[in-house]
């Protein structure tokens, strides 16, 4: 083993010392773990301040009769808010409306989204352009979408009724009749969010290995057989995740209802989120609204857990 070469200095004839600095003079270095904590803590504090604390605060308020405007101390009411919400006929009605909306919108979006993705995936030319065009509605603000659909669906001056009129069909009261109002909401939501399902489905479809189709072709498998035994089973788990995202989004629908129908006619298109808004901001019943919000979060968590278990089983199978 050779001696290390002496380090040189600017001044000729002088040899720099190769001994390490004395321990007393060195700065205390952060360990890897300390460094990790330093880097993570801003995000962690933000998460605690903006998400965890409000959630715990809402949980605390949900057991009180606190009102943000009335002030005064928050009186403890136990599970009073929760019992009132769970036994309220008004809440049951909004839950049913929300359920119909979620099932209707998500089913329609899944069928349409997957169909469009399947058709696009079979094209070789213009696939990118088509995909981009289909994605446009998803990029718009729901408020903007709501406003222009409100004009388009206007019974008197709207373009939809004008087109129906030119086909010899009668005027439809899209937003002011009980049956058509909810259908209109589902229709507008579908217009905006079908591209989301399409995008996920397209990702799944392009990931299916080509050799499976080639093998099926060699075996002279029919188109339907290939779709049923190769395409669908491989895309299905990804599609179910897209459905999960959409279902959660649809469950908390507020903006389109607010702009298009304001919950009407009467309360026939009031969703749970819209009702929470009214409880929170019309009467400023903060305690009740907090309990309502917590219950909605619980419903989403429980349903999501069940759904994820099903997904895992599917994966294992």
């Amino acid at each position, binding site marked *: 083993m050779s001696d290390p070469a002496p380090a040189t200095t600017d001044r000729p004839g002088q040899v720099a010392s190769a001994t390490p600095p004395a321990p007393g003079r060195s700065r205390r270095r952060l360990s890897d773990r300390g460094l990790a904590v330093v880097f993570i803590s801003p995000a962690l504090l933000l998460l605690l301040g903006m998400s965890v604390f409000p959630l715990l605060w809402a949980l605390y308020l949900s057991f009180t009769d606190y009102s943000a405007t009335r002030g005064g101390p928050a009186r403890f009411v136990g599970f009073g808010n929760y019992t009132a919400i769970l036994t309220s006929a008004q809440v049951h009605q909004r839950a049913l409306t929300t359920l119909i909306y979620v099932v209707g919108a998500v089913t329609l979006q899944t069928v349409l989204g997957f169909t469009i993705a399947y058709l696009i995936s079979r094209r070789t030319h213009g696939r990118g352009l088509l995909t981009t065009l289909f994605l446009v509605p998803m990029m718009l603000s729901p408020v903007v979408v709501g406003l222009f659909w409100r004009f388009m669906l206007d019974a008197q001056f709207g373009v939809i009724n004008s087109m129906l009129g030119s086909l010899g069909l009668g005027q439809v009261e899209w937003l002011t009749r009980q049956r058509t109002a909810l259908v209109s909401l589902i229709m507008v939501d579908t217009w905006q969010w079908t591209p989301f399902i399409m995008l996920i489905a397209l990702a799944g479809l392009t990931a299916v290995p080509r050799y499976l189709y080639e093998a099926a072709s060699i075996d002279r498998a029919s188109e339907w057989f290939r779709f049923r035994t190769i395409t669908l089973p491989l895309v299905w788990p990804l599609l179910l995740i897209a459905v999960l995202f959409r279902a959660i989004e649809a469950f908390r629908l507020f903006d389109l209802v607010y702009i298009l129908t304001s919950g009407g006619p*009467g309360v026939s298109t009031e969703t749970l989120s819209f009702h929470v808004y009214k409880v929170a901001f019309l009467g400023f019943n903060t305690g009740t609204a907090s309990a309502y919000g917590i219950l909605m979060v619980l419903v989403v968590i429980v349903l999501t857990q069940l759904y994820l278990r099903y997904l895992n089983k599917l994966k294992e199978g």
Partner: protein
Amino acid sequence: MRHPKRLGRTSVSGRKVQLATAAMLLVATTLVACGDGQDDDAKVSAPKAPATIPELTKDPLTLSFIWFDWPPAHALEDFANAEYKKERPNATIKVNTVPNANWHDAMFTQFAARKTDFDIAILDSQHIGEAVTNGNILDLTDFVKKNIDVKAYDPYLLAAYGQFPQAETGKRDENASLYGLPLLGDTWTMIYRKDLIGDKPPQTWDEMISVAAKCQANNPGVSGLAFHQANGSDAAAVTYNTVNGVYGGNLWDPKSRKIDGVLNDTAGHEAMDVLVNKMKPLTAKGSGNWFIDEVNASVAQGKSCIAFNWIAASGGLLDPKQSTLGTTREQILDKLGFATLPSQKTNLVPLGGMGMHVSAYSPTAKQAEALNFMQWFERADVQKKWAAAGGVPSRTDALESPEFLNAGPFNQVYTDSVPRMRDMWNVPEYARLVDIENTNVNAALNGAKKPKEALDDIAKEQQGVLDSSNRKGGGGL
């Protein structure tokens, strides 16, 4: 061989310490937040404004208002910056506007935060109870006594825009506290097509309905009536309350706080029947979500024989750029007439308009400026100038002045309507009461509920709101 220490894992005791620290942090933050809530205890009633205006600042200052977005809001900003600046050159007036549907929320969420970006809130008369009970606006009683000539007003206007508890009889209680001063008077006007139904407006409600039906039958493509039916703001509720008043009904018994059995008595049901079964069939298809703008659009495009709208929102009807009824104001006025509402069993009309209220959370210098502005605004000469600028004043001398009466064809309607006005409840529960009424009347008008069922539901649910103050949990459902 030494294995490198795995990152991201700590010993069990270390993790426990971290968890305990996080929990303590959260508990501490929660306690701090709880402590803030308890400070509110002291503020449960409106703080008092000084009787005399404190010394005003000479520094540049912006006095901010909050209102909803409609022509009077822009007129106020222009008028105040042109006229008030002559007296207070360092003051700039800014009228912040929000969409009508967000108006209540925009003001009261800021009140809830105990911090407002406005100095003067323009409250609907019915919002006063909520703001006073929560201590959000200043008590102006002493200020008014010293600075405002209360005899210059119709007593009900002062009561409606400032008094709490409300003057249910339509007369001001001299001993009641005042929390606001009138900014803009308003009521409904009947807008009718002179070229289709003649120069003479219908005098009774029944006559109005039959004239509208005849006009609709004779003019295909034109509907007999246009009025507010939407379930947002107070649209459908004001419509029902107007018909209810005209047919001799009452909204409630304020002394016993009884709604169920009062609102849905015989007169109430008759009013609902008239509205849903006689008036609604004369409206345009799909008009079940119409409010101010849609009614105006229908009139301006010549699509309705008779319409009802707020006077303060009717100015645009005379603008040839927005109308198909004529190319000049005169041509439009040849076709459009404006009249007070027809009477039936009573001659009541709805009270609209708003008052000015000083935010309790505004800085002291701005509160002083706000009081000075209010004193200036209520002067006789300023009220006349406000009338000439397109506003609707409240002082009787201004209402009867040529400046006001000649400023618009509907202004005489307002002056004639003042003694006939009736307001809704201005109790703290107003926002919920009006929502219940709006949604149920809207449901009845759009076939989602039968008229009788809708009115009974309104009475029952509103009574529930008034009676629920002692309920343990679930308030607001």
